[in-house]
């Protein structure tokens, strides 16, 4: 309120003065007009034929339909596509600014080869032929020396034809090291694997849920498919309740019907205490529990013994009566839904927490039910022939993964990118000789930036396929720029969290603006240069041919409508989606779930630093374009300085706007202090998405990258990063 009232008010006063002074001598106005309009230079945008092209935004995993307005061959504006099942006309701040990426200064305009030291910013422009030849040469050498497994590839996704081509190439080439960028998707996949015995994605029927219990998920702060979530939130305003459990008043908490402040990192305990009440009071769905689940008795015993509300209220700071009332309203609703995954869901989190929250859904029997959690099969339209591997390839594929996924320690986890820096730096497994990065910006997004840089420096050959000069591209040896999303074809399977399988088609809205090449075509070219089994695995002349064949009879529909939905899809009937040995849902938590311990000791670091997400700060592989960074409030970023949120109670003499040094065991940065009553005393919060060093002058060097201040903490079960915060202190600058 303060901000608003003051600025409005000051202008009321000004207004009175302005009125009083208005009959000024005309001469003075002349002067001011001369002074103000000395150089009336402005571009005059050319008019022409208007057209609209439908496509898909892939700037985040949201997968929104977009309609792009064009004048002649220029794209003028991106709007949300009406009727698209994900966003039906809505669009987010980043999607709206997409043209600033297309036409912006951060584009890599042609293949580049490093000319100076790594990261120095000196580049030599090279031809596509030469760029591809360099890769083929390097990969050929490694293969000859039986080092094919020492090649790794980091990809933003593992779904859709482009990433499948990448994975396929790695396989026939002979490397097990295809690594997907981590997110809560990993934790949910593992949860479903352990509790339902399936390999599938989780879908949430949010639109039909009438009571959403969110354990810190930033439902309207970018979690899941962001526009879809914001739309669902508006639905809940009309019919439905949201309870947000979080230690900070996020936008989600502010918009929720009830905000329950909780001690951070204790969400799993709270979920199990809620389970305790539900079981104790027999509020659970007896049909489901009796007939479709296994392990309930052990689960019950554990929960009743170890998670009674009184004890848990000590840990969580949530009163026993609140726990009880949450349990009652959750179990008493007709379509309750419990979700977790901190903030935007970039950190996978504690598997115990995911399973505890998932168990709540099972207790009330809302698995595969209207308004509940659905098992969404991975789209199966990519039906390429099995690859045939030569000896080198199969030898390589039998080597252990560098990140430890699938190892004895973490047998069920598929990808562990956050372990990669340490694996490279410690040299425990084997060195990485070549690293390829596509649709990802790991130098910026992996926690512990220092270790990440060190690891990158140890890899002798780093190739980026980025369209933009992001931090990873800037620290690579070769950049083979992909077309941006508005210039290329790409299939976009079901966005994260959607309850129904869909396929969308991103298609070229304008012709490529620069000397870039579709990553799909680049993979085909590399493979073909190898000949043999490798070339044989890629029988397509071009990516477009491959995509068209793969989509088969869906192609025409996709070209016309941009999306395809499976109209026959219905959630499985109970039991149908359970593939455990007993064909039943399995309550897994058996022993006391150890909370995830964060790094740092309390003595040195009296505070806890936590990240927060905002729709106005893109924190994935794309950085904020100028329009988006413009929307960031001055209580978050002032000039180049970032503000950290501190409760006035724990500000210890730091006044609003004071400079301070924020230190954690991982690093120290300069910040300014912002008093915020919405944050729990004892915590400091820093937004994700700032502190870029690459990109353009509109974004670079503003604020601090959260990942400089935190390192990963391995979840004991999954090996995924479960760090929800880190100990910290604020000292005088």
């Amino acid at each position, binding site marked *: 309120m303060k901000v608003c009232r003051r600025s409005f008010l000051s202008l009321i006063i000004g207004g009175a003065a*302005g009125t009083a002074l*208005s009959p000024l001598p005309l001469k003075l106005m002349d002067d001011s007009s001369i002074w103000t309009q000395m150089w009336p230079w402005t571009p005059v945008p050319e008019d022409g034929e208007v057209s609209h092209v439908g496509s898909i935004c892939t700037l985040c995993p949201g997968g929104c339909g977009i309609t792009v307005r064009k004048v002649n061959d220029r794209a003028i504006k991106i709007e949300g596509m009406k009727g698209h099942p994900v*966003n039906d006309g*809505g669009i987010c701040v980043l999607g709206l600014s997409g043209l600033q990426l297309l036409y912006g200064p951060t584009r890599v305009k042609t293949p580049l080869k490093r000319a100076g030291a790594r990261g120095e910013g000196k580049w030599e422009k090279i031809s596509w032929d030469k760029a591809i030849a360099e890769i083929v040469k390097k990969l050929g050498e490694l293969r000859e020396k039986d080092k094919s497994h020492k090649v790794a590839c980091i990809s933003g996704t593992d779904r859709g034809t482009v990433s499948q081509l990448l994975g396929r190439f790695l396989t026939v080439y002979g490397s097990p090291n295809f690594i997907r960028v981590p997110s809560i998707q990993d934790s949910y996949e593992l949860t479903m694997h352990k509790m339902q015995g399936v390999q599938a994605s989780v879908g949430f029927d949010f639109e039909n849920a009438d009571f959403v219990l969110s354990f810190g998920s930033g439902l309207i702060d970018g979690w899941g498919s962001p526009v879809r979530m914001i739309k669902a939130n*508006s639905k809940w305003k009309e019919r439905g309740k949201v309870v947000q459990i979080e230690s900070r008043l996020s936008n989600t908490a502010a918009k929720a019907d009830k905000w329950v402040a909780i001690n951070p990192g204790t969400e799993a305990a709270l979920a199990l205490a809620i389970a305790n009440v539900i079981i104790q009071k027999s509020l659970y769905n007896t049909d489901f529990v009796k007939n479709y689940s296994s392990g309930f008795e052990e689960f019950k015993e554990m929960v009743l013994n170890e998670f009674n509300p009184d004890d848990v209220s000590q840990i969580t700071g949530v009163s026993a009566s609140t726990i009880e009332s949450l349990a009652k309203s959750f179990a008493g609703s007709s379509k309750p839904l419990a979700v977790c995954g901190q903030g935007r869901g970039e950190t996978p989190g504690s598997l115990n927490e995911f399973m505890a929250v998932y168990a709540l859904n099972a207790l009330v029997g809302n698995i595969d039910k209207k308004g509940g959690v659905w098992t969404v099969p991975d789209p199966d339209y990519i039906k390429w022939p099995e690859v045939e591997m030569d000896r080198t390839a199969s030898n390589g594929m039998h080597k252990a993964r560098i990140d430890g996924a699938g190892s004895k320690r973490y047998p069920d986890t598929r990808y562990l990118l956050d372990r990669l820096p340490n694996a490279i730096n410690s040299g425990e497994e084997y060195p990485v000789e070549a690293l390829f990065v596509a649709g990802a910006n790991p130098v910026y997004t992996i926690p512990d930036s220092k270790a990440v840089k060190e690891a990158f420096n140890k890899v002798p050959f780093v190739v980026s396929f980025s369209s933009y000069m992001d931090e990873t591209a800037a620290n690579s040896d070769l950049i083979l720029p992909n077309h941006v999303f508005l210039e290329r074809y790409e299939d976009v399977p079901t966005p994260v969290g959607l309850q129904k399988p869909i396929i969308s088609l991103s298609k070229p809205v304008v012709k490529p603006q620069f000397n870039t090449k579709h990553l799909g075509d680049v993979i085909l070219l590399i493979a073909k240069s190898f000949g043999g089994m490798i070339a044989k695995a890629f029988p397509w002349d071009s990516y477009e041919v491959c995509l068209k064949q793969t989509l088969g009879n869906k192609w025409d529909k996709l070209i016309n409508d941009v999306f395809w939905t499976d109209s026959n899809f219905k959630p499985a009937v109970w039991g149908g989606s359970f593939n455990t040995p007993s064909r039943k849902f399995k309550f897994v938590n058996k022993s006391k779930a150890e909370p995830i311990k964060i790094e740092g000791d309390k003595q040195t670091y009296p505070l806890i630093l936590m990240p927060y997400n905002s729709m106005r700060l893109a924190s994935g592989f794309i950085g904020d374009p100028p329009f988006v960074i413009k929307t960031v409030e001055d209580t978050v970023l002032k000039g180049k300085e970032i503000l950290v949120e501190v409760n006035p109670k724990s500000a210890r003499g730091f006044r609003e706007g004071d400079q301070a040094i924020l230190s954690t065991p991982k690093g120290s940065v300069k910040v300014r202090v912002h008093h915020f009553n919405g944050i*729990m005393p004892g915590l400091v919060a820093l937004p994700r998405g700032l502190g870029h060093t690459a990109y353009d002058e509109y974004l670079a060097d503003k604020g601090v990258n959260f990942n400089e201040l935190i390192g990963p903490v391995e979840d004991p079960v999954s090996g995924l990063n479960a760090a929800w915060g880190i100990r910290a202190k604020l000292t005088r600058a």
Partner: protein
Amino acid sequence: MKEQHKNTKAKKYGMVIDLDKCTGCGACMAACMAENNVPFKKDESNKLDSITWMRVYSLTNGKKFPEADICYIPRPCMHCEAHNGHAPCVSVCPATATDYNRNTGIVSQIYTRCFGCRYCMAACPYHARYFNWWDPVWPDGMEKYLSPNVSPRMRGVVEKCSFCFHRHQLAMNKAYVEGRRELEEDEYQTSCTQACPAGAIIFGDLNNPGHAVSQIAKPDHKHGGRPMNPHAFRLLERLGTNPKVYYLSSREWVRRAGDNYIKDEGKQGNH
């Protein structure tokens, strides 16, 4: 084709913004900038010179943890009717560069007439007007996305939200070609309304009882357009600016914050 009346009834375009639904996501701000060729600078953190026709303010209830609460308030130009179209900004402009259009209720800004005295900025109680201190500069190549429907502004002029007036003109042109004088509700919608993922912004003719805006806000035209919906309010209602932007909130502290601006004036922070 049916004969049209020469004088169609005057419109009063206005907005209702549901603050319960608004998530503060900022899409409306970017939608506006992208639609209206709004420029940007390297540093936009000084909000006084950051040109945002649509700006989302955040309000807090001033309470302590865990009673604290936030509410976002998107603020376009209110297109004040005041008394008889004498909007605060209109009445002070010596160049008639800003004008109240009686057919639409839209307060226009004519850049070529504006010579930058900035009286209107001082007069506007909503801080809805912005001055171009610099010529706009688009990075090389980025001017490709500029829309031909809205002229880019030059240094020395004031600009503000136009309710995407060019969209009205385009829609009217189309209607005329089709032999109509009246627009359907969905034919003229502002860019922010269209973009808002929450569906928090509704736009239409406050004079038209069939339009959602008038059904929801229920403006009392006999009393300066005051909303009759108990959850609706306007910013600084008592100034008598008769704004055409209505807000909805189920939270009382939000309604009070927008409505009364004198009480506890002394308690302001450093913003």
